[in-house]
């Protein structure tokens, strides 16, 4: 079937660039607002993918494969970077036991207090109390705690 638009036309370019820009913007906003370290990394990857889409779009527009070759590079590098980043995330978790970016505030001004987010759940000092089920469907004591909140991932 005949394409409705030509392959190198500007409408395709515009749309592809728009998609790339949306991906990039979403990734940017994600880095800035999400506190989970893994989700922040995910957003960074998203930014990379947005750039890749833009590169492919420009490559198709100019008829030059250089852009698409660069995208292959970007994918490769993103994979390596993912490995390194996840090692970093693991180390961060091992030190604080949390995946919260707000846990790292030691490099602030000495006169300022820690920024404490009061919407956070209670600290890890209190050990979680998991429900203990009895053998025959009897409701265990203390079952009125809300099981939906948990401090640990």
């Amino acid at each position: 079937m005949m394409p409705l638009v030509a392959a190198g036309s500007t409408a395709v370019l515009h749309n592809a660039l728009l998609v790339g820009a949306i991906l990039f913007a979403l990734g940017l906003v994600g880095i800035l607002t999400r506190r989970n370290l893994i989700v922040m990394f995910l957003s960074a990857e998203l930014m990379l993918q947005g750039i890749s889409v833009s590169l492919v779009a420009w490559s198709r527009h100019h008829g030059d494969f250089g852009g698409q070759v660069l995208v292959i590079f970007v994918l490769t590098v993103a994979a390596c970077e993912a490995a390194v980043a996840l090692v970093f995330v693991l180390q961060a978790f091992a030190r604080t036991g949390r995946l919260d970016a707000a846990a790292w505030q030691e490099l602030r001004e000495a006169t300022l207090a820690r920024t404490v987010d009061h919407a956070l759940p209670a600290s890890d000092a209190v050990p979680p109390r998991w429900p203990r089920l009895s053998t025959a469907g009897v409701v265990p004591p203390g079952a009125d705690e809300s099981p939906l909140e948990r401090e640990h991932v």
Partner: protein
Amino acid sequence: MQQVSPATLLVLVPLLPLVGAVLTLLLGRRLRSQAHLPAIAGIAAAAAVAVVLLLGTAAQVGRPDGIHAEPVRPVEMISTLWQWATVDGAYTPPPGSAASIPGTAVGGTAGASRAFSIPVALRLDPLTATLLAIITCIGLVVAVYSIGYMHHDPGYPRFFAVFSLFVFSMSMLVAASNFLIVYVFWEAVGACSYLLIGFWFRKPEAARAAKKAFLVNRVGDFGLAIATFLLWMTYGTLDFHDTLSPDGTILPGILGQTRLADSSGIVGGAVGTAICLCLLLAACGKSAQLPLHVWLPDAMEGPTPASALIHAATMVTAGIYLVARTAPLFVACPGALTAVSIVGATTALVAALIATVQNDLKRVLAYSTISQLGYMFASLGTGTLLGFTAAIFHLVTHAFFKALLFLGAGSVMHSMGNVIDMRRFGGLYRIMPVTAATFLVGALALAGVAPFSGFFSKDEILASLHGKGWPHAHGEHHDAAPASSHAATTPPLHLVGLRTSATEPRAVDRRALIGDGSASGAVGWLDGLDTPATWQVLFWMALLTAGLTAFYTFRAVFMTFTGPARVPEEAGHHAHESPPVMAVPLMILAVPSAIAGWWLFSTQWLSHFLSATPSFTAPAVATTAAPHTFHMDLAIQGSLAAAIGIVIAAIGHLGRRSDGPQMERFLGPLHTFFANRCYIDQLYSGLFVRPLEALALVAALFDRHVIDRLVNGVARLPVALGGVVRLLQVGLLQRYALAGVMGVLTIVLALAWRLRG
């Protein structure tokens, strides 16, 4: 043998003490107890040179030839060291004024403008030679005395350095031949006086006394500055001597022989009187006359040798020197002359009255100095040659006996453990015979007892006052015609110098020297004071002062040296005669105190010698020369006054305990008045000191609360700004990333906005 020129010798007199001062400053720490050596060597060498100069100048002047002598030719030598400042074309005087250059066309051409030129020029004439000899010789004697007196003082090198510096400054002051140079060294002696009065600066009274001396002197210096400005505007030059301009015309100096020989050379009237009154103010400040006398009694806080040199013999005579040097200027303004005499005689009387009730030996001598200086001013103010030479004669004898008295007081103080209140010791002639004997010699000279030196000089002063009050009493020829024509025709003599133009001799009349005869207002009032009645009053004041002088002097002598022997506890083991290094200077000074007056008077050497000074050979002054006869009636009056004073002092104090009943019984409230120094200090304190302190307090508060707050506020601004920016550093990674992204967004939006249009 190679002849040393007088110019070199003249430079050596101030230079050697200066070198001594510099060496003492540099090496004082190293030399410690030998720190006096450079200073003593410098002053001794300068004294020798000064004596040589004195003898050389005396040889030039020649010996007096008898009663009706030939009028003396002026003797002077000018030696210009270097040109300090020159500003070409600084001032174009109005044509025909005293400042215009003689021989230039009337009409304001370029050649008629005068250059502001200050050469560092020294002059040698009889007045300078006399004073240089006095300064250096008495300086030497006092310096030797100080070796003993200041022996244990930790500031020993500093004392000799400042002492030597003072001798240098004073020598330059009397040798300078330019008003600005005189002003420089006028200030310099004031500064050295400050350093010496405040020598023990950790003592609050001494520091305050030094400050007071300097500030009161400053008022006088203001007078000298104004006088200098007026002299520049009036005469177009500040030199005393005549100088040669590059194209050969003679620029007359203010006191140069060209101007003095010219009958209309000196400006009188209002301007002249203003100049003379400003010079009088300067002299009052330096010589401690009313109303600027308040610093001298407080200056006794300094070491006694400093008092002996500076406040008895040398610095306080700078005022006398200034008025004597500018004699032709004063003679042209009779009102100013009368003012000088009135100030002098009043000061003499008031100071003598205050001295009668003082209990501190040094204070008695300080007021005595003020009183004797008043005598000298009274004599200067008569405007006659006799008056001027009598004042210098009294200056010379006073230098000797007052230095002797001060050193004697220092000797007493040294052995009494720094106690100088006469009521606390007595009968010291047994313990300190040499001091007692020399002090007695000085006291007899001060009281004016014949044949000691003070008698002759005081007699001459009384004679000059008497001659003005009763002009025809002794048949003197004041305006003798033969003398005037001789004085005008004799060509002046120079050792090294310039030839004067051949000015035609004119018969001069003293009154013709007044520039514009119409004197109105204040000047006319002052001129009107010059009546015989005024002089008669001044004569009686001087006679009364003579009696009081004898009284307070011998009161001090009797309280200190006679009566039962009493020694205060502070004396300890000190209560013995002074060591030879202190006693020998006393004996050295006692000799001229005893015989100098008789010797100088009988040979008439000093008056003849001084009359060769160019200032005194001016026809206006020289025509008043009178034959020197010994006025027996005046001598009797003076001696009677002195005798009465001594007898009253003996009745009250001879042989009694010195802390016995004082004169409060007789004087009552007057005693309190004089003991509080006529409340002048309190008056000045209320009029000047308190308002100034209040002003200073306001300034201090303004400085502390407004200016300091402003500066500190400016300092706090960056800190505050930083405090605001610091709130951004919270340590949260995402906040930092957000900041970066906001920045990038701003740049991108700005670029997009630019590229849009």
